[in-house]
């Protein structure tokens, strides 16, 4: 409708060590900055009382086309280490970032393996059919 201002839709995807959890519904935020602020609040919800264990978790902000806009590492906003000097906080953040990268790699490997298994399973079905015809 003419005159309507379309508010952008954002999706907040949670990346843990083992899973990638989509935000199917999404929600409307006026701009990237507001969406980033919301991502911070969600991350604070999810890491509270488990800050040490969930430092490598992330919230990925995606736009309405599900294209990534930004990614927030939990360790970067961990209030329990905010009082520490930078030289102590940085190694923790760096380690968390590396664990996150490792988790991504493992997820990618798992996804590839699942695809290979599916392909092999289909190949089995095809081979069985071919052998059946020849027999």
């Amino acid at each position, binding site marked *: 409708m003419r005159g309507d201002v379309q508010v952008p839709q954002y999706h*907040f995807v*949670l990346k843990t060590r083992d*899973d990638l*959890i*989509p*935000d*199917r*519904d999404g*929600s409307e935020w006026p701009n990237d900055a507001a969406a980033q602020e*919301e991502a911070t*609040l*969600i991350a604070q*919800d*999810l890491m*509270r*009382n*488990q800050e040490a264990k969930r430092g490598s978790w992330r919230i990925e902000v995606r736009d309405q086309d599900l294209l990534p806009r930004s990614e927030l590492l939990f360790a970067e906003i961990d209030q329990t280490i905010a009082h520490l000097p930078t030289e102590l906080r940085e190694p923790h953040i760096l380690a968390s970032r590396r664990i996150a990268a490792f988790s991504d790699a493992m997820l990618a490997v798992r996804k590839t393996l699942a695809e290979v298994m599916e392909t092999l399973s289909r190949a089995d079905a095809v081979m069985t059919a071919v052998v059946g015809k020849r027999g």
Partner: protein
Amino acid sequence: MPYQIDIAGHSAASPTTPLATGVGCKTNRCLSGLSPHAFSLLKSFLTEVVLREGTILWDSNKVSSDVYFPVSGLVSIVLDASDGVSVEVGSICSQAAVGALFEPDQRDFSTQGVVQFGGHFLRMPGPQLLLAAKENSEIQSLVTYCRDWILMQAQQTAACNAAHTADRRFCRWLFQACERMDSDTLCLTQEMIASLLAIRRTTVTLIAQKLQVEGLIQYRRGKITVLDRVRLRAAACECCNSLARQHWPSTRLLALKAPKSRVQS
């Protein structure tokens, strides 16, 4: 609407009917746990009411002198925190009563009582209940147990909010709601849960999505079905144990009578 006596588990046709237990949400279990004599002291003051979701029973601006015995609904006791955020500090279903359970000079109305799940309730004036409690030890126990229950939940919730993660608190809330409502399907939105647990709506979305993938729940708009209550309890924080069935006012009332009448809970 006049009070329908059978709804509290006491049959008008047979006043000496054994105490009703485990009747799901068709009765208020505290009232059905009373002896016919104790119940008769309250009966004439009880009125059946149907309350819709969102009805505010009391808050700081609306002082209530009524006591509500939920039959098929659930009342949340909510405390307003700063920045317009409110958090649930207790919930009352058919195993307890809520409202003006305290003497007028002891009432603290900094909380808000809101109907979370609409349904049938039995309402009576608080002063009449407290008067009856002075005359009858069973009713006195009922009042005491219901006060204890509210206090226990508030203490446990404070500890839970301070020490446990959002996902475990979500599982605890869902498990307890199912137990208390005696149903695996609850009609509620993600916004409602987010408000009760004082977390973001998207946080609820992500937690619910994870539980759905793990096969613990099924979520559709406005409706959550628990598929595996045992695993849901395992995923919840240990507060489930502290607020378990044996602490319900209705269970304590039955236990009070058990040595004499051998009522099984």
